[in-house]
């Protein structure tokens, strides 16, 4: 390891010391991983989904294992933004002062999203927002905000108006044309995009003839979805000007490098945290090692560097 690698990357005005961040909902707000991970080494901590009021989440069972993946229907259970500030943010301020905190925002209506952001604007420890537009839009019959360009742009524009902090919009992969959604969101003022959220899936227990999840359907994550995620990151990164945070099945440094080559400026580690609580550190070390081995002086040089 002769050369030293510049690992920093930028998501709009947000500078990260390295490209490895956590995927929302798989790392809580960091505290649970403190025994395994030096959270100050993370590029950023993306928190679990935070809503205006407490959400109870879905009935159990909430998870099911599938081939190289898992389904979840946690349902964004969270105690609401006030409790988030009091507990999670307080812990982060004390234990991860140097690590940018990106709050993942959930909502069932445009007002919900804006409400969370407004509440957090006065909290100096919040570095950026990641708006999860995969949430069901209750005003519009429950289809997710993220499956339709106009709705996706509406949420984005409203959040944009509520903050000058970096605004990342997280896209759902359950769409015909991810590039169209990405472009709408970019036009509506997003500073960055993150993708992919989970693929809608289902599992059945043949013996009992029942769905494995109480909610019947849930979100598929893990290595199984990596090919779909890479394809979408590649398509989107070529089509938009703003940076992309790539995720979907990243288990090690090589996976992370693949996402960067496809066009991701940063990468998020999700399901891998359950497989190995030290996964974020392994991914970071793996990317660094790759850069050394390939003589890459700035990790940002990998972004979109896919050859033909």
């Amino acid at each position, binding site marked *: 390891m002769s050369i030293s690698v510049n690992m920093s990357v930028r998501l709009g005005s947000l500078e990260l010391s390295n490209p490895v961040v956590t995927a929302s*909902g*798989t*790392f*809580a707000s960091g505290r*649970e*991983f403190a*025994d*395994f991970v030096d959270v100050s080494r993370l590029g950023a901590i993306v928190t679990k989904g935070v809503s205006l009021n407490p959400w*109870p*989440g879905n*009935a*159990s*069972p*909430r*998870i*099911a*294992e599938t*081939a*190289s*993946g*898992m389904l*979840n229907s*946690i349902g964004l*259970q969270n105690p609401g933004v006030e409790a988030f500030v009091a507990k999670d943010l307080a812990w982060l301020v004390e234990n991860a002062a140097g690590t940018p905190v990106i709050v993942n925002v959930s909502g069932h209506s445009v007002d919900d999203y804006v409400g969370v952001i407004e509440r957090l604007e006065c909290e100096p420890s919040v570095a950026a927002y990641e708006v999860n537009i995969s949430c069901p839009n209750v005003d519009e019959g429950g289809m997710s905000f993220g499956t339709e360009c106009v709705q996706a742009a509406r949420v984005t524009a409203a959040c944009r108006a509520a903050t000058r902090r970096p605004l990342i919009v997280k896209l759902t992969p359950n769409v015909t044309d991810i590039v169209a959604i990405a472009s709408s969101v970019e036009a509506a003022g997003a500073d960055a995009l993150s993708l992919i959220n989970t693929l809608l899936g289902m599992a059945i*227990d043949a013996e*009992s003839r029942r769905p*494995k999840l*109480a909610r019947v359907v849930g979100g598929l994550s*893990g*290595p199984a979805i990596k090919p779909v995620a890479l394809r979408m990151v590649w398509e989107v990164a070529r089509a938009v000007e703003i940076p992309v945070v790539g995720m979907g099945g990243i*288990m090690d440094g090589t996976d992370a490098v693949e996402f960067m080559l496809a066009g991701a400026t940063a990468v998020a580690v999700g*399901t891998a*945290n*359950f*497989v*190995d*609580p*030290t996964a974020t550190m392994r991914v970071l070390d793996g990317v660094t090692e790759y850069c050394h081995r390939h003589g890459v002086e700035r990790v940002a040089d990998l972004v979109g560097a896919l050859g033909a």
Partner: protein
Amino acid sequence: MTVSRDKPALERVRVLANDRIAQGVGLMALHAPRCAATIQPGQFVHLRVSRGADIILRRPFSVHRATGERIEILYQILGEGTLRIAEKPVGDTSMDLVGPLGHGWTVPNDAAHALIVTGGLGAAPLGMLAEQLAAAGVALSVAMGAPTAQRLVARELFERVARRVEVSTDDGSEGEQGFVTGPVVRLLAEERFDVVYACGPEPMQRAVAKLACEVGATCQVSLERLMACGIGACLSCVVSTHDGLKRACVDGPVFSAEEVVWDASQTPPKH
């Protein structure tokens, strides 16, 4: 005494022994010095059974006993994960664990007389507790239940450390015929217990909790839930309590029976 919790860690393990000890039940001993040194009765380890990517979730297992640098796991072969465990040869180093995890059994400060109730594999998290209670001079009675004689596990351990062991099987092939609640009713009527520890199928735990409550004994139960992370982050393992949703992996798996709002839909599909 209150059980103190130690920091969990990721630890590579080596298989020291792995034998079939009852119908569909294996006992595996692992070299896991870090975990063995600090694990408390009722805590569990989250075991990665496959390095391949096909089975990505870890499997949670109670630690049945811990001695020196060794922990023992009593496991029932249910699905692909436990099948693979059953195939691990002595010397295998392909697995790792995260542990010790969770909140184990609590021994009230003044406990003098305890009752342990097991149903089938429910004996697994109670082995270490029984040994430690006995070593601490707590008088111990045990009621063991199983579907049939061939599925009765850990009897020798309990007979070694308990004053009294009552056995029942659903089919009467060993001990008394019927559910374990039969002997429990009798024991609770005959003796006074400071604390009742129960582990087994959730309906059994619920029934035992009710019986304990009726005679005014505190009761602790160990609950199983599907677990992804095992460390409190994912919220897949929720348990309804009178104090809201709690996480089986960090707030449990052992709960005070009074706080639990029994909800069959939360229990894993198998066991």
